[in-house]
């Protein structure tokens, strides 16, 4: 079918400000949006810039604002969008070129919550034991692929870039609720600060946007309660 694709483009070496470019092309309903922009890049305009790698929703490269919602370009099909497709870079991070944004602030926030396993006891010769129930508590938040779809869909983050954002909280949750980990107090301490957890206004955009179906707001609320009830 004939589709109409509008892409917000910006070339820092040529354009003073971003502008909308429109393309008409043939596509199949079963095409991914990634296929569509690949086609544009390969056949129509080689200068179009975006990130991609795995093409099936596992690497987190290609989060974009597609028809008003954050999604992975490789995980949404043309037939679910209709004939008019609008693509913009995700919001709240500096745009570097076309659909490519600066991910460094995002990763800085991620790193701020100490997103690594902390346990200073000498490990046993085999594995540390953990019951299946204890493992299940943080199962959902281990699925994060750091695509930033959540953080850049958050209305608080759009205007307040200092907010750590849902992705950082999700990754903190993954460790705070891991029974083997000993760093919960420090992570909660970080999240307790002005631009941490308490900036979340439960807008749920993050949960709707997450391509991994992580119940993000639920996780955030769990961390809020953990902070509230921790015996400090």
């Amino acid at each position, binding site marked *: 079918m004939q589709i109409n694709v509008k892409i917000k483009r910006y070339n820092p070496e040529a354009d003073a400000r971003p502008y909308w470019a429109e393309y008409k092309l043939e596509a199949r309903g079963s095409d991914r949006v990634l296929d569509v922009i690949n086609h544009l890049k390969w056949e129509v305009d080689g200068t179009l810039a975006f990130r991609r790698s795995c093409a099936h929703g596992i690497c987190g490269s290609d989060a974009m*604002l597609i*028809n*008003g*919602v954050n999604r992975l370009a490789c995980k949404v099909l043309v037939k679910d969008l209709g004939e008019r497709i609008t693509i913009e870079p995700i*919001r709240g991070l500096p745009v570097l070129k076309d659909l490519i944004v600066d991910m460094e602030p995002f990763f800085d926030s991620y790193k701020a919550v100490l997103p690594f396993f902390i346990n200073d006891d000498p490990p046993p010769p085999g594995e540390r034991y953990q019951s299946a129930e204890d493992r299940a508590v943080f199962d959902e938040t281990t699925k994060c692929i750091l695509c930033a779809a959540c953080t850049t*869909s958050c*209305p608080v983050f759009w205007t307040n870039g200092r907010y750590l954002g849902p992705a950082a909280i999700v990754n903190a949750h993954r460790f705070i609720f891991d029974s083997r980990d000993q760093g919960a107090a420090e992570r909660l301490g970080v999240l307790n600060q002005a631009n941490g957890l308490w900036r979340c*206004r*439960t*807008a*749920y*955009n993050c*949960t*709707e946007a997450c391509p991994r179906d992580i*119940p993000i*707001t*639920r996780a955030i*609320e769990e961390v*809020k*309660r953990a902070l509230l009830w921790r015996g400090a």
Partner: protein
Amino acid sequence: MYRGREGQWAFVLHRMSGVALALFLLLHVIDISLVMWGPDGPFNAFLAFYHQWPFRVGLIVVIAGVVYHALNGLRIIMMDFTEWGVRYQAALWYGVLGLTTLIGIPVLWKIVPEILGIA
């Protein structure tokens, strides 16, 4: 415009109504405190100022806002303290909207004509 769903609009409305309420509250305390200067003082002048059209409409919005804000505030509290509050947040929001209308209509039925000076 980001095509967010219930949660996003719940938040936007909550914040807008909250800010409106807070600003109204500041003004309201000021005007009421003007009674200290007596019946011939600035109070009635202020009241007259208030009785201009934009303020009358504004007051109605604020009253509608307080109902929404209060009910959605309760929704937020439920989400913060219970698992099911999060699970049913969208349904709860429709509940908030429904109740806001339900409470709002009779209230406005009574107040609007009074505020607008029709009654």
